[in-house]
């Protein structure tokens, strides 16, 4: 039980010293990705081996011991290369570690201090020994993710040893108004998509008359292709809790909720574990650090609905209702959870807060650009060489992200487009204006995209943009809550039209109609889901109109993705006229004379592909 600020400082000192005593630390990534790759077994094995050799130190940092600490860390962001093992203080990063590699790691690296090059990141014949040198990490600024992958995600002691909860302790000595002002001065804007100034939101809640207020952390993260919040909740849960606690102090709220989507069981466990620890240490609960301030946090598990990420749907869901957004006003700051003033912020937003409190607003603003201070975490996926979770200062250009950090396009292909902001975002293309654009809430909005939660899907030349629009529309259509007419009926209609086009049945009128529906839904839908659902359609219509025309007028899919538009043809130069294909075709689309080239009647062919397989001479192809 920590009773006051001095207690906290002396504990920090104790844990830090204990950590420093550990000669070596082995951090086995225990994020979802690496666990899926078998990292838990690797952790157990390394631990056992170290123990056998009498080198293991206790996880309890109250004792100062010399030896090797073996820990489970959170996600490093480089999940694709997992399971990852990081060795400190040499900062070696081993990739794709297998159970068989454990002995070598223990004997060679831990005992002898030698690197194992075959497990290290290599490109163009160059071996990158330390994590920090790897291009994927080198260009990043890991502020929010600082602890992720570097500390034991299940230990409050390590968090405290690294300066944890000092920000909250500091906040407890400040006037709520001053905390709000500090956050306002830092320029922090919400990381959940909207970019609303956090300090302003808190001040509004603080100013409400109702004495009952809530702090809600939005960990619904339903955007397909995004896992920033998950990694933070799993890798550094205490930082989220500390951020919420500070928000509670700043807005005089005494209860917090964390809404975590049901698909994230590990995040729930880590958060619950962290909450229990914080309670035990007196950092949550009644009369925290003897300040008279009390704060409790509960976890609420979602039940599977993307729309519950929307603020009013989220609160409705906690209140035991269908997660349907409601009309605003009243806004959440006035009447949010249980009709009380509520701070609703995103996981990453909360994780920024302790940093600002500790370092001050000016320091924080050194990161990022005017009106968009700090960093942003992105989930870089798709056809780039290095996929994973990255953190860069606001204002970084797409080019830097895709080519410097992401390592460019896979397999030497050409870059075609990048979709930012998931299903509610837009597609940007390879042109100066887009790729050199310093990323910020405002710059993206100006080109019809949005930062959204930070999903970033890179697409290469083989991607069909009409199909991409169809894919995102099928997502929003499925996830619409069905309350308002434009979104409920409109997303369905847009999807129908896009399906029609990708099946090769589109007509010119469909393009106009598609635009009209998109325009209507964008402008009249009730909530953010509907208002942004047409973005992928509108942005692809704007930047890739040619591709739509090709589908509709020429009836071809330039990227050869849309099956309905492919034609199956026989190459007369290869065909030997054996008639095998004609016999197998279910619709009798193939005809010809024995020993002469056969032909396919394109009007009859249903593109089943049976003939392709049947031809012994590989004369039939899809074009």
């Amino acid at each position: 039980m920590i009773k006051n600020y001095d207690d906290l400082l002396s504990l920090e000192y104790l844990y830090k010293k204990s950590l420093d005593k550990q000669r070596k630390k082995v951090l086995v990534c225990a994020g979802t990705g690496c666990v899926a790759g078998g990292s838990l077994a690797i952790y157990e094995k390394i631990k056992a081996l170290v123990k056998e050799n009498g080198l293991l130190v206790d996880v309890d940092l109250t004792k100062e011991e010399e030896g090797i600490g073996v820990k489970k860390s959170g996600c490093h962001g480089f999940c694709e290369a997992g399971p990852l093992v990081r060795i400190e203080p040499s900062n070696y990063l081993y990739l794709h570690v297998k159970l068989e590699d454990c002995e070598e790691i223990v004997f060679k690296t831990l005992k002898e201090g030698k690197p194992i090059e075959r497990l290290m990141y290599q490109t163009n014949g160059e071996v990158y020994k330390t994590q920090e040198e790897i291009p994927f990490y080198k260009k990043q600024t890991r502020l929010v993710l600082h602890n992720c992958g570097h500390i034991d995600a299940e230990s409050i002691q390590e968090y405290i040893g690294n300066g944890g909860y000092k920000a909250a302790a500091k906040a407890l000595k400040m006037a709520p108004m001053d905390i709000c002002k500090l956050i306002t001065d830092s320029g922090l804007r919400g990381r959940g998509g909207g970019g609303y100034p956090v300090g302003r939101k808190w001040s509004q809640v603080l100013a409400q008359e109702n004495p009952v207020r809530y702090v809600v952390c939005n960990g619904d993260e339903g955007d397909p292709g995004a896992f920033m919040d998950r990694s933070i909740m799993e890798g550094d849960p205490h930082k989220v809790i500390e951020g919420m606690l500070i928000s509670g102090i700043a807005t005089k709220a005494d209860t917090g909720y964390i809404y975590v989507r049901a698909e994230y069981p590990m995040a729930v466990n880590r958060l619950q574990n962290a909450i229990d620890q914080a309670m035990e240490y007196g950092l949550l609960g009644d009369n925290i650090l003897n300040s008279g301030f009390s704060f409790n946090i509960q976890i609420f598990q979602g039940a599977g609905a993307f729309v519950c990420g929307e603020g009013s749907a989220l609160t409705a869901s906690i209140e035991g209702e269908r997660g349907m957004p409601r009309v605003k006003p009243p806004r959440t700051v006035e009447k949010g959870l249980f009709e009380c003033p509520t701070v609703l912020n995103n996981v990453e937003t909360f994780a920024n807060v302790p940093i600002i409190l500790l370092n001050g607003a000016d320091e924080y603003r050194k990161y990022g650009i005017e009106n968009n201070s700090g960093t942003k975490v992105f989930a870089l996926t798709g056809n780039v060489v290095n996929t994973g979770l990255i953190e860069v200062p606001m204002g970084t250009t797409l080019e830097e992200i895709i080519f410097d950090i992401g390592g460019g396009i896979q397999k030497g292909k050409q870059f075609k487009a990048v979709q930012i902001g998931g299903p509610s975002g837009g597609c940007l293309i390879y042109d100066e204006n887009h790729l050199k654009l310093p990323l910020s809430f405002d710059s993206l909005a100006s080109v019809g995209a949005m930062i959204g939660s930070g999903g970033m899907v890179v697409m290469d030349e083989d991607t069909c943009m009409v199909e991409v629009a169809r894919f995102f529309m099928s997502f929003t259509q499925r996830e619409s809550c069905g309350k308002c007419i434009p979104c409920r009926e409109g997303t369905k209609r847009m999807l129908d039209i896009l399906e029609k086009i990708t099946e090769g049945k589109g007509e010119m009128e469909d393009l106009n109609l598609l635009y009209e529906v998109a325009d209507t839904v964008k402008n009249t839908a009730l909530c953010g889901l509907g208002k942004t659902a047409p973005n992928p359609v509108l942005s692809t219509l704007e930047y890739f109109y040619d591709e739509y025309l090709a589908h509709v007028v020429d009836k071809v899919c330039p990227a050869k993705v849309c099956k309905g538009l492919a034609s199956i043809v026989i190459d007369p130069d290869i065909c030997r006229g054996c008639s095998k294909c004609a016999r197998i075709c279910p619709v009798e689309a193939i005809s010809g004379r024995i020993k002469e080239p056969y032909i396919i009647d394109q009007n009859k062919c249903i593109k089943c592909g049976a003939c392709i397989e049947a031809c012994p001479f590989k004369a039939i192809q899809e074009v």
Partner: protein
Amino acid sequence: MSGSMIIDGKKVYFDNQKNILSLIRDNNIDLPTFCYHSELSIYGACRMCSVETSDGKIIASCSEVPCNGMEIYTNSPRIRKYRKMILELLLSNHERDCTACERTGKCQLQSLARRYGINKMRFNQLIEEQEVDYSSPSIIRNPNKCIKCGDCVMVCEEIQGVGVLGFSHRGTEVKVKPAFGKNLNETNCVNCGQCRIVCPTAAITIKNETQKVWDAIYDKNIRVIAQIAPAVRVALGEEFGLRPGQVTIGKIASILRRIGVDEVYDTALSADLTVIEESDEFMDRFSKNENLPLFTSCCPAWVKYVENKYPELTKNISTCKSPQQMFGAVAREVYNKKDQEDGKKTFIVSVMPCTAKKAEAAREEFSHDGIREVDVVLTTQELAIMIKEIGVNFDTIEEESLDMPFGVASGAGIIFGTTGGVTEAVLRRLLVDKFGKEDSEIIFNNVRGLESVKEATVEVDGKVIKIAVVHGLKEADTLIKQIKSGERHYDLVEVMACTGGCIAGGGQPVPRTITKETRALRASGLYSIDKVKPIKNSQDNYIVKSIYNDILKGNKQILHIHK
């Protein structure tokens, strides 16, 4: 809040309007809506009420508060385009068989489609046919015509507290229906029909039983007699362009005769019987302090609500039959004999403001040897349909008077049709000779009006009687809970399921949106009849006396329910 805004270039002043929509409507612009009813919570789902602001933003006017200096356009090119698209989207997922539709000509979807000139369907029709629910004795639910505006859900949950209809599923799959896909007759639906009042389309309609009446009329061997409930006469006119509250009983009498009904009577007369029976029953229970409070029994939706939710309180409900069933019971007494004499069959039709009365008439206890006390219940709405079918000119038809003997009613019987009416009628009997005219007026005023719960305290023979009047089942439920918990105490409680009482029943004509004003006008129609009635009190009705003496001959049993 007050201030001014510019709407379509014209400066207008606002003063406490809850939302921009009301302000727009107060300025005589009929902005289209599907999901807005001033008495329900704001749902904001149809987006038809969208308007454009001067900086090009599109906002839903039902859910924004007026703001000083704001400038909006209600009919800009963009707004028009969006509204059309919303309608197109709706229609393409709607069973569009207007010519065969119960609601045609009075359907909001249809009329807006006309108004916005939707004459081409650019989307392919996409409707997965769902089963129509004919199971309820009162209403028909056709999900193929539902636009999911949520109005019925809100009425059923927020106003009636029954919560039979609800949203289920999500996205395009959203449905409005009873839980677990049950039919209405398998649910707790009390048949009040309030959902049908707010539904903008034909997704919920009254179970139309006019054909049964035609069949009876065309059968030479059948004598058709009709009883007309009080509330019908102050609302039917709305179907023919009259203002709510205008009294049309004379026209109803002459038209029913044109239709072929043989004898036309007044349910207000049997209401007089109810007053007498119920006040006697009350005084009896009150003196014995037995099963109090006594709940009124004339609203079948209320009775069913209690049976469903508070079975232990059924003993508190008056054993008196409702006026409709008292009429049926008495009429059968008279006509059974007559039928035998002239070899005919008597067919009893009620014309009621109420969908629940259809269910009431079908209840087992109101059938004897396979013969129902009331054969068919027509709602005001169905009567209007029949009138339109025969094509008489409602404006010009002469008024006629009702038939005898059951055509004379007191003012007390007439005001049954509005909330507080039953109580006032009973008080007129209990307080007779006890107070001066003015004192009684003051007491009566306490129970009049549209407030959700009204109270009165009277002293009779040195004992204090506490009375409550409540309408709307959700309000009634709150009251019951308070009574059960001992927080409140009453001796007599009048409950009407429909807000405002029967004048706003589920079988009445539907204005675009039913408001307090509609209710108030219809109620004042009833009070205006009361004003000119020579007989004010039930006990003074000479027909009532003759029923007791000549027909019942002391056998009051048939006026009560025996279970």
